[in-house]
């Protein structure tokens, strides 16, 4: 039994995003421990379930009311756990696939849009001011911009050097190796505490995992408008900064020092 848990722990991403690394991913490992050997459950099935749970959360947010908000918050967290489960299960079974990867990424993109649109609508009903909807517009657009500049950069660089991605990924992997702290099941509690504290810096990246926390907290405490402001401002900041960094990287032709190719 313990061996199974250890093997599952191995499938956890080593450098996860903020909320994933110490909440969603460990919970996903536990959930997988229960169901990973059931043949009727497939990674793609879990991805689909994750999307459906995410959509259910959006519907509850639109329906409105404090109780529904709290249930929606739980569903958002559950959807994120499921989102972590699919990849782990695929790795555990040795059945990672291109299709699974694609399906996972597309659903991620879609659910973020649904969540923030639903929250914007609920916030509009509360304050009766259309400007809150445009906070969501701004946030979603600039968040997409972050993802988009990443792909545009890869697209442009690969056109000039077919091995760009392989080269820079190797570089990124070597950087990660030196940075990674050993923590987890086998390590002592002190190491895990230090690791946990250091993980908190990742909050400032304001990516998908942070959105899950922000959305859930805003729904539980009914602070939709302030959350939308934080969302919009953080995404405008990152959209602008990443654009500038990527543009500079391409202009100066120095991909080593700035950003790893998959960062957004």
């Amino acid at each position: 039994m313990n061996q199974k848990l250890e093997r599952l722990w191995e499938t956890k991403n080593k450098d996860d995003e903020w909320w994933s690394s110490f909440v969603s991913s460990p919970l996903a490992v536990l959930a997988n421990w229960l169901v990973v050997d059931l043949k009727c459950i497939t990674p793609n099935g879990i991805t689909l379930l994750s999307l459906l749970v995410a959509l259910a959360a959006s519907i509850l947010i639109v329906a409105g009311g404090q109780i529904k908000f709290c249930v929606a918050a739980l569903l958002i967290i559950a959807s994120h756990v499921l989102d972590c489960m699919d990849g782990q299960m695929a790795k555990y079974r040795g059945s990672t696939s291109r299709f699974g990867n694609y399906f996972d990424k597309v659903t991620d993109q879609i659910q973020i849009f649904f969540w923030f649109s639903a929250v914007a609508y609920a916030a509009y009903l509360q304050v009766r001011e259309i400007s809150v909807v445009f906070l969501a517009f701004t946030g979603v657009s600039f968040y997409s911009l972050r993802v988009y500049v990443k792909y545009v950069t890869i697209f442009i660089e690969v056109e000039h050097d077919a091995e760009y991605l392989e080269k820079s990924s190797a570089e990124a992997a070597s950087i990660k190796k030196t940075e990674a702290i050993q923590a987890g099941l086998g390590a002592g509690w002190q190491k895990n505490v230090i690791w946990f504290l250091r993980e908190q810096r990742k909050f400032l990246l304001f990516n998908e995992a942070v959105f899950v926390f922000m959305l859930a907290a805003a729904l539980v405490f009914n602070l939709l408008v302030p959350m939308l402001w934080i969302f919009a401002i953080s995404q405008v900041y990152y959209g602008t900064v990443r654009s500038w960094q990527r543009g500079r990287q391409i202009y100066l032709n120095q991909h080593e020092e700035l950003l790893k190719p998959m960062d957004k």
Partner: protein
Amino acid sequence: MGYQERIQRLAETSQPRQEWWSRVFATPVANMILAMVADCPRITPNRLTFLSFFLAIATSVLVFSGDSLSIIIAGMVLQVAYIVDCMDGQLARYRKTASKSGSFYDKWSDFVKFPFVLVALALAAFHRSNSVLPVVLGLVCVFLTVYLPYLKLFADREFGIRLWGGLSGGGFLQRNLRFFLFEEAQWYLLVSVSLLANHPLSGLILIASTQGLVAIARTWHVFRLVRIMPDGTGMSEIAQTES
């Protein structure tokens, strides 16, 4: 170099793959203007990219102001923005100064300017009708406008799928079927038409429905292609370990 020679060289550097509206309108006009000014050193591809970006922002401001005259003017300004948008890459190829950073700048400004115009459209339509419908449609349009280029690059880079490659040829059917791709050219056309008709809401409906259908069709198309692909090494593996 004379006018005729420049026309000749510009025709040679034209991109083979064009959408319907770009083929009948923007590219010919862009080439005509370029034939006059292509050798003027003060006009650079990057400045043109900026001008197009600026004109699109000006369109949003005009739409935002809300009165009928500015909305109709906005429809025309947007088409000028489109012509200028077609000029920058063409000029860079003509001068053989196409660069990675220029290409990045061009793609970046395209990506950023569309949501601006859509937000302005949604606001103008909202103030007219005072219902939530235009706002919801606006959100859908913004999502689709940022999702489609994302999907295109994502499918290409991680799975090597070139979307609708079969429609890129010069045959009669291919040229005309491209109308239904609803890419950049159609986007400019639909928005401009709705502005010239002084009816922002219809623009939102047109974009949400056409781009929505395209988004569903494309997502499905990539789904099917990725599904039959053999699993292997390469981009997807790199991406998987990173995500």
